[in-house]
């Protein structure tokens, strides 16, 4: 009898030992998301110092459909993610391959490359805002010195989004570089040497050998950067706050305004869920494309 109890305990111990982790997971992940879902179908108002929740899913959904800023924000976000991540991937890969070929000074190059990631986003926003300043910024001073007309970097609807994307590229290329550089360093030298002996050019080595071997690292960099790009907020908020007009309004910036400036908690939660859904959909499509690429 006693032995059977001990056996039963031993058999179930592995399940019980998971309990603390399960509790933590529920408390830190499931509960906040469940609360967000509950908020997204409610109107939350405050009266007499207390929050009052009313179940209004149709009302919140009607706000989503009638939101005239959301759709430009969604388009801007998509452009931002696609352009910024594509350029970052290309530059990150190029730099990783270049630095990997250096005989000396790899460590120094890596250290210098990583600096932009270390700068806080608030400092990046302030620094670039000064550099982009129409009257006092270094870019326009350089252009004027060269006899060219100053550019309205952050005040023109046709340039502002590109200016913001440039800052994001400057900030995040080092991340892609670091991930891919580690992967490039891990590619066996003998494979490259064998290709050279067989007469492969540098371009062929990169296209036919390096990129296929780097696919797992490329996928990781792409997924991480895409998720972070979808959530970009601080740089854009500091540089333009979404303006001029809606030209740099991203969904995250719009979400901030709805949540914190307009205090629409229920609708803000619904927008958050919409953003999460967009990220999941984007990742699913990317994963599908990568899987198709692998099988091809």
């Amino acid at each position, binding site marked *: 009898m006693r032995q059977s109890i001990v056996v039963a305990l031993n058999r179930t111990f592995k399940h019980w030992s998971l309990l603390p982790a399960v509790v933590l997971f529920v408390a830190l992940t499931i509960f906040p998301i469940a609360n967000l879902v509950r908020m997204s179908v409610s109107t939350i108002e405050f009266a007499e*110092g207390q929050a009052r929740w009313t179940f209004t899913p149709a009302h919140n959904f009607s706000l989503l459909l009638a939101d*005239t800023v959301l759709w430009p924000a969604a388009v801007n976000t998509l452009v931002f993610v696609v352009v910024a991540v594509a350029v970052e991937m290309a530059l990150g890969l190029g730099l990783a391959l270049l630095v990997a070929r250096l005989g000396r000074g790899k460590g120094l190059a890596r250290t210098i490359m990583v600096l932009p990631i270390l700068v806080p986003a608030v400092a990046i926003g302030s620094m670039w805002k000064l550099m982009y300043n129409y009257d006092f910024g270094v870019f326009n001073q350089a252009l004027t010195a060269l006899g060219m007309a100053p550019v309205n970097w952050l005040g023109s609807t046709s340039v502002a989004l590109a200016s913001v994307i440039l800052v994001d590229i400057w900030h995040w290329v080092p991340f892609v570089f670091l991930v891919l550089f580690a992967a490039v360093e891990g590619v066996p030298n003998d494979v490259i040497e064998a290709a050279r002996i067989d007469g492969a050019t540098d371009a062929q080595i990169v296209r036919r050998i390096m990129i296929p071997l780097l696919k797992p690292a490329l996928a990781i960099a792409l997924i991480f950067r895409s998720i972070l790009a979808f959530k970009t907020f601080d740089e854009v908020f500091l540089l333009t706050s979404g303006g*001029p007009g809606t030209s740099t309004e991203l969904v995250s910036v719009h979400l901030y305004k709805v949540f914190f400036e307009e205090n629409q908690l229920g609708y803000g939660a619904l927008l958050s869920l919409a953003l999460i859904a967009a990220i999941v959909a984007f990742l699913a499509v990317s994963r599908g494309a990568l899987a198709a690429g692998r099988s091809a």
Partner: protein
Amino acid sequence: MKSIQRGLCALAAVALLGIGAAGSAGAQQPFADVGKQPPITILINSSPWYAGFEKTVELYEKQTGNKVKLDATPYGGMLEKARNAVRGAKSSYDLINLDTQWTIEFYEGGFLVPYKEVDPAFDLPKEVLTYGESGYWNADKRFRSAQGGKLMAWSPNGNVLLYVYRDDLFKAAGLAPPKTWEDVLAACAKLQDPPKMYGSVMRGERGNGIRFDWMYFMLGKGAAVVRDPAGGDYTVTINSPQAKAALDLYLDVAKRCGPPNAGSLGQGDLIQLISTGKAAAGMVVSAAWNNFDDATKSAVVGKVQAVPIPRPADGKPAALLGNWNMAIPKNIPDAQRKAALAFSRWFLTAGAQRVYAEAGAIPVRDDTFRSDLAQNPKYRWMGAYLEMQKYASQELGYAEGAQVEQILGLRLNQALIGEMNSAKALNAAAKEIEELFKKNNRRTGGLTPLPE
């Protein structure tokens, strides 16, 4: 009998002496005696006038022995800190400072205690400026008004915009200080020389910046966002011909007098342009004045003057108030509420307000502006400020104010950057604002749309 007479005379003499002494004490000690109080913590914004507030608080501590902890917070963090404080079980602050546009959320949410509930005898001194009664909340009307409203907050700072101009440049060009926007346009014709010099600058950035500055034009032309919010009539009138004329005038001034990036100019940019000598004039917040006379920050020390914001030639003078409101959270113990009120009482005295002004802040008492300080060249902005208080008003003082600001801030900016014409921008704003009021069951309606 004689002894009675002597007694009465002595009593009268004592009484007279007493009155004299009291009168003299009142004149010489214009601070309130608030007694011993427990320490308090104040959530305060680190705006340009913070140094003045800090210095005045130091004097309070020295005079009374009461301790005050200041949590100086950048503007961007103020609202969330205040929300977190009042929505929790117990506020970590005994006084919270709220921008005028945030107050309604806090009043309506029932997060604050009316001052008279802390001390039924408390009233604002009659000299204290109420800034369009933004510290009062009429819960029945959901509107800020002393008429049937309770005192929820007092203002430690009240801003109107001032029209700051370069006296030296204007004199050299034979120009008088501008009184109308048409004067400004005439001055720009002489002074505008981009990118070396801009004739006149004002905020155009999306959001609060353009909304606030444009409303000076709107009020000057006699236009309004809604017909009569105090009376419960929320008919949207923002697309009236007067409002369109106001927007067209604003756009004209922005384009003919400002830089090419007029649509992204914020308060910091204006201060920078004027203090570096790149702008000959501009609409700036009164709290920014010290930047122009500070030799460590300014290339135009002693060269700028201030006048009231110009009016449209066919309009009236107008001013919009943008003030801060100091309130007591409900979720603090009674002793803390009393200590917060004691500080408030002391801070609003004539003595404290003079110290506050001398330390670089903007006082909130009428008599401080009328004192000898106003004659000092250092405070030469005071005349314009006080003049504008005569007709200054609060806008968007209703529950939907924050959302209306978002709508106007976007549509006006779109008109400025050329994404839509003025009529289309105002029609779009009117439609969105009316929808908002409908959803909140307000008595609303609209005007016939402007021809686009």
